[in-house]
């Protein structure tokens, strides 16, 4: 046996509650983060990701408290991200009980932070979160793909998907690895919230271009979407939120389904 594929419930937290949006907008309430974390951990989640989507300076202390509460009820690895801009932010999160820190906008604005973090805490605690979206206006020095006769490239978006950067997602993934990322959390903005399945093309290309673990995110609506992304790409983990939040499928049920479809999972 070798490594299993990891199934990772994601808790997007806003003002202390777990929420889930469609295309990063129209947010719905989905429960208490501490209760959900415990439930997922007990049901056999391989890891948890906790994203504070309203992170701001004033909320720093609130986040630390919440991280500490969540970390004290689970015994599986745990990533925390949202608004991480400085070494101090990352340190706070790690010392509050998280195993890894997720960085998105902060790393785009200041890529050197990845190297500084690696030197302090080791590569394994650094998850670079990349939100990518198809851009049909072709420009130079991007990796161009074609789907349904249309050409496009994958552009990195920051500030929770609100602001474009002009940066090619595949190139950024490679650079992030070089600078110190230990893992990539790859979200397709095109697929996020659609429940139509993961972004196979985007995931496959980022996995091919890097040699660190990649987590696929965005678009999962049913267990078969996970089967598909694991069969169609060599991705290491699949992240999902809504299929777990609304009790349509428990974590254990999803993993049994994956096992039936010959995907190696921990049961």
């Amino acid at each position, binding site marked *: 046996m*070798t*490594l299993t594929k990891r199934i990772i419930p994601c808790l997007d937290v806003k003002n202390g509650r777990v929420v889930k949006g469609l295309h990063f907008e129209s947010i719905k309430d989905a429960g208490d983060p501490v209760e959900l974390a415990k439930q997922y951990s007990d049901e056999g989640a391989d890891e948890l990701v906790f994203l504070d989507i309203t992170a701001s300076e004033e909320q720093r202390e609130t986040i630390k408290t919440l991280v500490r509460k969540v970390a004290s009820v689970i015994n599986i690895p745990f990533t925390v991200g949202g608004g991480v801009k400085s070494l101090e932010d990352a340190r706070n999160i790690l010392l509050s009980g998280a195993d890894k820190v997720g960085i998105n906008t902060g790393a785009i604005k200041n890529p050197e932070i990845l190297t500084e973090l690696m030197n302090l805490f080791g590569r394994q605690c650094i998850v670079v979160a990349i939100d990518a979206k198809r851009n049909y206006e072709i420009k130079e020095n991007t990796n161009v793909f074609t789907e349904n006769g249309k050409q496009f490239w994958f552009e990195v978006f920051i500030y929770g998907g609100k602001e474009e950067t002009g940066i090619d997602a595949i190139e950024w993934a490679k650079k992030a690895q070089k600078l110190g990322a230990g893992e990539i959390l790859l979200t397709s903005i095109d697929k996020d919230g659609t429940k139509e399945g993961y972004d196979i093309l985007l995931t496959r290309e980022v996995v091919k271009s890097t040699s660190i673990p990649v987590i696929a995110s965005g678009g999962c609506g049913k267990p078969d979407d996970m089967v598909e992304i694991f069969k169609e790409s060599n991705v290491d983990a699949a992240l999902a939120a809504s299929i777990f939040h609304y009790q349509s499928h428990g974590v254990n049920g999803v993993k049994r389904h994956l096992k039936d479809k010959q995907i190696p999972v921990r049961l």
Partner: protein
Amino acid sequence: MVSVAIFDYGAGNIFSLKNSLEKLGATVDVITTFDNPNHYSGLLLPGVGNFDPAIKSIHEHSKIRFKDYVKDDTPVLGICLGMEMFFEKSEEGHEKGLSVIDGEVIELPSSMKIPHMGWNNLEIKKPGKILEGIDDGSWVYFVHSFLVKPSSNDIITAESDYGIKVPAVVEKNNFFGTQFHPEKSGKIGSIMIQNFLEECKK
């Protein structure tokens, strides 16, 4: 009630380890030097940080050497980096290791994704104190880029397969090491921490 100490190199999450020990009924102190008298029943070297800074944080804050602090009677559990530090040297750094186990620490082969991150299963080689009550094939959580290469394979009680055989659990006298993170390995990990605490009570 068993009283243990976690040595903090100041480089990451030790909250989870402390929390898991306390849940099992231990009283836990976090220490940053070996210069105070050792009144603990056990010591834990956590698995966060890098080899050189961690070794340096021990040397710089302690006049008493690690070996003299734990002698041959305090059980020590080294987790991941903590276990790697038991050895003589590591390809991760230039500092000399704690040298309580003969052998070295080398990088994982680059043919595989590094870090080796995720759940892998244990191939139990021989009975061990930490492995009491653990079934062959049990899942544990790894996250590491280096592996230990003991001079004697006799001390390896469990391995894991990541393209090559990765020593997963080692036991030598009062030194116990796990390459994976028991504090992050769900119920299985909890049993191993309990086993270590039982050893501390003796």
